[in-house]
């Protein structure tokens, strides 16, 4: 990557890195926060200026880092003329807005937050315009939606702010979704997700049968973002945002993202009839409609918002024309619109800030009170109106010129007439902005005495107004960047000359009509306004709200009918679906003939089978009596363990036996605090329904298992058996699968187990603070109890058993790699050995002798397993590759050392910690419920008694 490429990367990253700072710097004051927002922006701007000369010469700067090459997603950026223009606008405006916002926001507003959001937005926006990969572009696109949501809703206490933010997010987010589809189609047609490649493949894309769907989806994204009719309604509602946001997002940058995208895709998508009729028509309609509504808006910012809608329509229309000259006009107008519209927004903000109102009907005569603001506002508004010697005039002339020779469905007049009408309305509302706010008689009923703001606040709009005049008088100043950007848009080599005087052309006449008509319209404004207010109009927000309410009602209807909070309903839906799918699969292709014979059933196995069936059915019948159900579950566990042994699965048998014991203890601990009987809640009909579903599901699974067992089917186990010793160094395939082949799964599972343990601990903690805690305290558990609390016999037996159980656990752990066993079973066995001590000598006595916290054990286990896995990296192998060797130490037999064993140690520790933590948490309830604890190990301690006798003697 070149030196310039590195710079480009830094430019892309700077705003995001910078976003971390203002939120912190606000502690050092508002100016410091603003300064640290300006610093990364200014730095990025400087770097951009370093790159600018090369780009203006026609070079394209590229930078690429592979991110997810499998998906065609790479972090690649490129800077051409169009990107330079937009990046310069984003960063330059960012600086001005930072300055303006410093003075605009009041001391009650959290300014650090504002600047953080602003920089996040700036980074996202910058990302859009310099992305070379369309998937990356989509990511930035969504980021602008999200960060603008934060900015629009910045004044969280205002309901309009929140609603406006939601509406903007919903509309632009929906458009973004459509665009994702369009971009994926585009990438698929072009065979690459890189813009540079896509831009080369224009012919192929336009010829593809997927062109139209891709075009429509992408345009949906662009139109929603750039507030084109009929999606224009969100923009005025987004004006609830602070004015700096409106000036930045809704005039200069974000709403231009759609325009940018259309310009970016211009070489690929433009030039067809579909493009012309969709884009140009939408733009034309938006331009006229937006201007018309703007004329009758009394809110200054709403007027500007609809005027922005109108100008965005103008840009869209120009791009829609599909001619090179129109593209040049569009690029030039992007610059001009930025300068005058941002200045106007800032002026509106100043007026609002100083007079405490934005209602045009309450303003007027401000020219003497706020002379500076008046001057800036007038310059910008005259430019918006398209008066000569201001920059708006130049690009509007070019627009009218293009419109004057565009046919629309065979009509020569439709486009020119409508374009002139749009321009005329634009003149009218621009004049109204000046006339109704600044001119006219001075009033004495302003909500607040107006005066010009401090320099810091009018500096930014003043600079923009200067640019308006500079470009307006000397358009050649902008020629370089316009040429570079227009060449990037069209892919051609153009040399446009921007001039004030083109001679007496149709465009000039159209301009004259527009200005005269606009002035006339303003004079008639009062009666027209009355008519407008009286006329019925569709209210976009009401329609949108109804639409949203409808969708919400629909989804709520679906959700409520399927998710009513009863697990039986979920299980029923899930099970019926699974059974139905199974049946469809079965009915589809049928079943091959069985290739195996039934095995003989020895009588003892039949007995086991009867035990299993009888106890299972009994659990269903007796589950209301919880203790009996638990005893029956004991039989089921026993039968299954024995079944595993019989079916040659000793590992499973060992695991099942220990899991069974731990489960029974957990359930018994919990049952102590629960009602001993389950209430009868289901109606007979419901029981019948659930019974039928249960039978269908159980029968289905049984049939499936039977079908598989009766046929020779190739499974992955063949591979595991063949490779377990060679690849994993163990002869116990089950263990090698757990710690090696599927080690990653095991790693995930022990983490889940650890989390479950911690979660139970946390839940119990919360439980003991809640209302159930009071119930626990008030329940009397003392009915009819044996007085043998810690019987001597039991204490002695468990003490003797402890070392034996430990050795068994160690043994099972160590040989796990080659024979049945392993860390999981060993963990359970040791846990049971410890539990015995808890049961025998009580909670307090055992707890006192515990050295390591169970939380620590869980953490230790996960860390050991993780480090073992990561150790493989040192050898240059992928995560969790195991290594093993054989060691011979004289007194003992040759034994194997495998890294898998260390991993198994992690499993062992996690299992032990999690199980103990669960039981510990459950038995803590009893302590809380007010039960006393024993200090000594047993009820009657013969040792203590003997000592007492000795001292007496």
């Amino acid at each position: 990557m070149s030196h310039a490429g590195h710079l480009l990367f830094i430019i892309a990253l700077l705003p995001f890195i910078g976003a971390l700072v203002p939120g912190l710097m606000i502690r050092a004051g508002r100016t410091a926060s603003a300064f640290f927002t300006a610093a990364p922006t200014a730095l990025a701007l400087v770097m951009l200026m370093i790159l600018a000369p090369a780009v203006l010469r026609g070079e394209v700067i590229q930078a690429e880092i592979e991110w997810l090459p499998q998906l065609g997603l790479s972090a690649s950026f490129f800077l051409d003329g169009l990107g330079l223009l937009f990046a310069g606008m984003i960063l330059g405006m960012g600086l001005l807005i930072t300055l303006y916002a410093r003075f605009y926001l009041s001391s009650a507003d959290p300014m650090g937050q504002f600047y953080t959001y602003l920089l996040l937005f700036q980074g996202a926006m910058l990302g859009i315009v310099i992305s070379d990969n369309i998937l990356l572009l989509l990511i930035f696109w969504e980021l602008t939606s999200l960060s603008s949501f934060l900015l629009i809703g910045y004044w969280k206490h205002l309901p309009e702010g929140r609603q406006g933010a939601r509406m903007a997010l919903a509309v632009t987010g929906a458009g973004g979704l459509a665009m994702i589809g369009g971009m994926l189609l585009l990438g698929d047609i072009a065979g690459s997700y890189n813009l540079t490649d896509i831009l080369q493949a224009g012919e192929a894309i336009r010829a593809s049968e997927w062109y139209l769907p891709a075009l429509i989806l992408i345009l949906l994204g662009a139109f929603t973002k750039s507030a084109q009719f009929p999606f224009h309604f969100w923009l005025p509602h987004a004006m609830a945002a602070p004015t700096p946001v409106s000036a930045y997002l809704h005039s200069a940058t974000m709403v231009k993202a759609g325009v940018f995208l259309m310009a970016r895709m211009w070489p690929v998508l433009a030039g067809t009839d579909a493009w012309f009729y969709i884009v140009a028509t939408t733009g034309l309609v938006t331009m006229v409609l937006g201007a018309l509504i703007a004329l009758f808006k009394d809110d200054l910012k709403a007027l500007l918002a609809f005027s922005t809608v109108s100008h965005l329509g103008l840009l869209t229309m120009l791009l829609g024309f599909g001619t090179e000259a129109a593209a040049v006009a569009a690029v030039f107008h992007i610059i001009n619109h930025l300068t005058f519209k941002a200045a106007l927004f800032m002026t509106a903000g100043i007026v609002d800030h100083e007079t405490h109102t934005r209602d045009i009907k309450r303003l007027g005569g401000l020219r003497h009170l706020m002379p500076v603001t008046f001057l800036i506002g007038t310059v910008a508004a005259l430019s918006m109106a398209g008066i000569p010697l201001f920059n708006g005039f130049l690009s509007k002339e070019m627009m009218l010129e293009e419109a004057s020779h565009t046919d629309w469905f065979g009509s020569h007049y439709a486009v020119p007439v409508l374009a002139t009408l749009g321009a005329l309305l634009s003149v009218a509302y621009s004049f109204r902005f000046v006339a109704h706010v600044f001119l006219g008689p001075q009033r004495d009923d302003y909500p607040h005495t107006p005066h010009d703001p401090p320099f810091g606040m009018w500096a930014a709009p003043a600079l923009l107004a200067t640019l308006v005049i500079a470009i307006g008088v000397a358009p050649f100043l902008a020629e370089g960047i316009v040429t570079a950007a227009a060449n990037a848009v069209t892919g051609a080599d153009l040399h446009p000359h921007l001039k004030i005087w083109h001679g007496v052309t149709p465009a000039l006449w159209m301009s004259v009509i527009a200005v005269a008509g606009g002035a006339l319209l303003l004079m008639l404004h009062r009666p027209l306004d009355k008519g407008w207010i009286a006329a019925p109009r569709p209210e976009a927000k009401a329609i949108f709200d109804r639409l949203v309410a409808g969708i919400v009602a629909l989804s709520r209807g679906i959700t409520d009918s399927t998710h009513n909070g009863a697990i039986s309903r979920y299980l029923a839906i899930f099970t019926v679906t699974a059974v139905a799918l199974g049946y469809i699969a079965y009915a589809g292709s049928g079943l091959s003939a069985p290739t195996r014979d039934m095995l003989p059933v020895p009588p003892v196995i039949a007995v086991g089978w009867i035990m299993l069936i009888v106890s299972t059915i009994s659990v269903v019948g007796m589950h209301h009596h919880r203790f009996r159900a638990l005893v029956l579950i004991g039989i089921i566990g026993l039968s299954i363990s024995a079944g595993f042994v019989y079916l040659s699965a000793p590992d499973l048998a060992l695991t099942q036996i220990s899991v069974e014991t731990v489960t029974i203890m957990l359930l018994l601990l919990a049952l102590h605090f629960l009602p001993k009987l389950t209430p009868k809640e289901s109606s007979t009909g419901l029981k019948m329904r659930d019974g039928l579903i249960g039978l269908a599901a159980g029968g289905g699974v049984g049939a499936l298992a039977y079908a598989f067992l009766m046929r020779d089917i190739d499974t992955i186990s063949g591979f595991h058996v063949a490779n377990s010793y060679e690849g994993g160094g163990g002869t116990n395939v089950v263990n090698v699968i757990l710690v090696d082949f599927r080690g990653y799964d095991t790693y995930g599972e022990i983490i889940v187990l650890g989390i479950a343990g911690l979660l139970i601990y946390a839940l119990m903690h919360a439980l003991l603070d809640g209302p159930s805690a009071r119930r626990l305290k008030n329940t009397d558990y003392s009915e009819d109890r044996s007085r043998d609390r810690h019987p001597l016999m039991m204490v002695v037996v468990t003490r003797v058993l402890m070392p034996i159980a430990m050795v068994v656990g160690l043994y099972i752990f160590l040989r796990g790699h080659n024979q049945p066993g392993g860390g999981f079973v060993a963990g359970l066995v040791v846990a049971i050995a410890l539990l015995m001590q808890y049961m025998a000598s009580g909670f307090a006595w055992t707890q006192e002798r515990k050295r390591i916290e169970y939380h620590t054990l869980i953490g230790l286990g996960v860390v050991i397993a993780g480090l073992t896995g990561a150790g493989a990296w040192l050898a240059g192998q992928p995560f969790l590759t195991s290594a093993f060797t054989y060691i011979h130490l004289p007194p003992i037999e040759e034994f194997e050392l495998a890294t898998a064993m260390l991993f198994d140690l992690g499993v062992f520790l996690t299992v032990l910690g999690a199980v103990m933590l669960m039981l510990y948490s459950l038995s803590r309830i009893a302590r809380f419920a007010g039960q006393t604890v024993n200090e000594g190990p047993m009820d009657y301690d013969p040792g203590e008694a003997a000592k007492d006798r000795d001292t007496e003697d």
Partner: protein
Amino acid sequence: MIEYALYFTASCYGIALLLDLWRIGVGPDPADRILALDTMVINVIALLVLYGVWRGTAIYFEAAMLVAMVGFVSTVAYCRFVLRGDIIE
């Protein structure tokens, strides 16, 4: 000869299991049920050992040993539940 002995003993334990099952079903006391379950555990241990003898392998003995070692823990837990309510005091 050992085969007949195995058949005989396995049948005995099988029948014992069924009797245990019956006792667990009818009760009447929780103590009866716990005792029957414990007997069932013992019978299963025996059957596991017999199975090992029949197949001529020692690998199943471990399962038997583990059942023997932890099986009684469940019994103790059930008993403590019936006698004291809380199994860990």
